[in-house]
């Protein structure tokens, strides 16, 4: 076999020059990536070792901030708990509703394309805009939910957002409305990978719709489930805008998330050292969850 011209050319060049060409193409992305992400990550870790108000007098405290957060900061513990509740709720509810929608919208019927677009649309609206819409829906006097209850003849009213018992779930419901389309799309794509032959064979063997779904569709969608799982967990750790727009962590810190707590510590109370420590803990938790996923993605590629 003749060597391809590509190889001949490569062989004729000095190794060093070859590498430099590649690095030249990589360089702009590398510079931006290093300056926006890599360096700030290390800088954040450095700051987290200090007691600092953001202006002057950085006082080195070692891992003191970490210790304080875990042993002597009830709001931090609430935040971690809320993030966990949030993740559990997304995995139970968001995933179920998304899968249900995907299965329905995978059937052949008139208007299918329209409905796909319709359910996906809320996820292209800015989360801040979503939060303003829902702030209005939850409004205790004139808002949609309470007015609907009145129209239906009930005198039921509820202050959804300012009641610490309901506020987190109220935010979650608003978020479910906004993001379910994303997982739905992923599931729809996954459903296309299910073998039609296998489904037909099962039908001939007398398997009902439910049985076919459990024994054929779900195993075929293994990869899709892993991807949806991972994206939902990442999103659950990062959730910020919608909480900020609806309650900003209140009332009484009952809806505080790691992300909002980091924000208020750093930019509202000027506990920059402490806020940065929260950010570092967020990253550590995410590394722990995500490294297996990244290695999976890289292998698949």
């Amino acid at each position, binding site marked *: 076999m003749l060597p391809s011209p590509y190889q001949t050319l490569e062989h004729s060049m000095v190794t060093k020059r*070859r590498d430099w060409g590649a690095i030249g193409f990589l360089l702009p992305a590398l510079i931006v990536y290093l300056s926006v992400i890599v360096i700030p990550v290390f800088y954040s870790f450095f700051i987290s070792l200090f007691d600092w108000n953001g202006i002057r007098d950085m006082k080195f405290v070692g891992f003191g901030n970490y210790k304080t957060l875990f042993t002597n900061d009830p709001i931090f513990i609430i935040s971690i708990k809320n993030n966990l509740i949030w993740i559990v709720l997304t995995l139970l509810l968001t995933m179920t509703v998304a899968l249900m929608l995907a299965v329905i919208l995978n059937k052949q019927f008139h208007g299918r394309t329209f409905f796909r677009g319709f359910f996906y649309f809320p996820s292209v609206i800015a989360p801040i805009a979503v939060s303003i819409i829902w*702030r209005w829906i939850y409004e205790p006097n004139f808002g949609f939910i309470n007015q609907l209850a009145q129209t239906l003849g009930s005198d039921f009213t509820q202050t959804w957002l300012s009641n610490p018992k309901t506020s987190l779930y109220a935010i979650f419901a608003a978020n479910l409305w906004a993001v379910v389309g994303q997982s739905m799309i992923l599931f729809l794509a996954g459903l296309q990978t299910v073998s039609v032959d296998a489904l037909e064979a099962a039908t001939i063997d007398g398997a009902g719709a439910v049985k076919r779904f459990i024994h054929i569709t779900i195993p075929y969608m293994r990869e899709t489930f892993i991807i949806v799982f991972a994206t939902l967990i990442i999103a659950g750790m990062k959730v910020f805008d919608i909480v900020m727009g609806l309650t900003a962590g209140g009332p009484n810190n009952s809806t505080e998330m790691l992300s909002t707590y980091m924000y208020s510590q750093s930019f509202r109370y000027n506990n920059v050292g402490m806020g940065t420590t929260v950010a570092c803990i967020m990253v550590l938790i995410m590394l722990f969850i995500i490294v297996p996923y990244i290695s999976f993605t890289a292998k698949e590629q």
Partner: protein
Amino acid sequence: MILAGKQQKHLFLALFYLILLVLALFWIAPMITLVLTSIKGKKEFYSGLSLFALPEKVAWKNFSEALIRGRLLTYMKNDLIISCLKVPLGIFIEAMAAYALTRLRLKHATGIFIFFLVGMMLPFQIALVPINVIYNKLNLLNTYFGLFYVYIGFGISYGILILRGFFRGIPKEMDEAAVVEGCSKWQIFIRIILPMAKPAIATLVIVDFLATWNEYLLASVIINDNAKKTVPVGLMTFVGEHGTDYGLLCAGVLISVIPVLVVYLIFQRHFVEGMSGALKA
């Protein structure tokens, strides 16, 4: 219960449409509320007119007030400038990197790729304080450059993931033929790889535009000058200024959603396909 096959099928179909109808009602209610509220004036609002009733006269004033007094026009202009800078520049440098990772001889190409991927899972929070400190020193707070530079940084991981996947699917024979004709690496990149990657680039443009247009956290930390704010940050300011005037607020939100709706409707089909394509890549 034993049902004849045909009956069972009808029952199943009825149930199917019922579920779809209920879900659709849940999903459309907030949108209808938004529109109905935005066209009501203050007077009708507090006169006890039901939320679900139409007003006698459409309160166009809400929209003009939101645009001018609420400064939404300014916010949209700023957001458009930032997005138009971020999206093409970001995609170009991501494509260059993806080209190096897939087409050029590079040691540890997989390692470098994973190094870039890590950025995808990092929350913006990890960079907030350092960027604030550095930008403060460099006088980059309240500048367009400061904001879109950070956006490019945080978009790199996803862009490289998508483009690298796509470039790998472009047959190597294409480049080889170009090498024979004496094209340089740069020419191959510009004349062959980029044009062939149009579908992937189109998907990225839409995803990137929406993400940039909608981003709140970084923009709220980097920009606090009313004249430079983007739409989400501006909307929060707007809420702060007109907290309970829901007619005006809803008009503002509706206006801010219109550009996104237009982009979405134009690219909808492509978008849904692109998203699933990205999954398979």
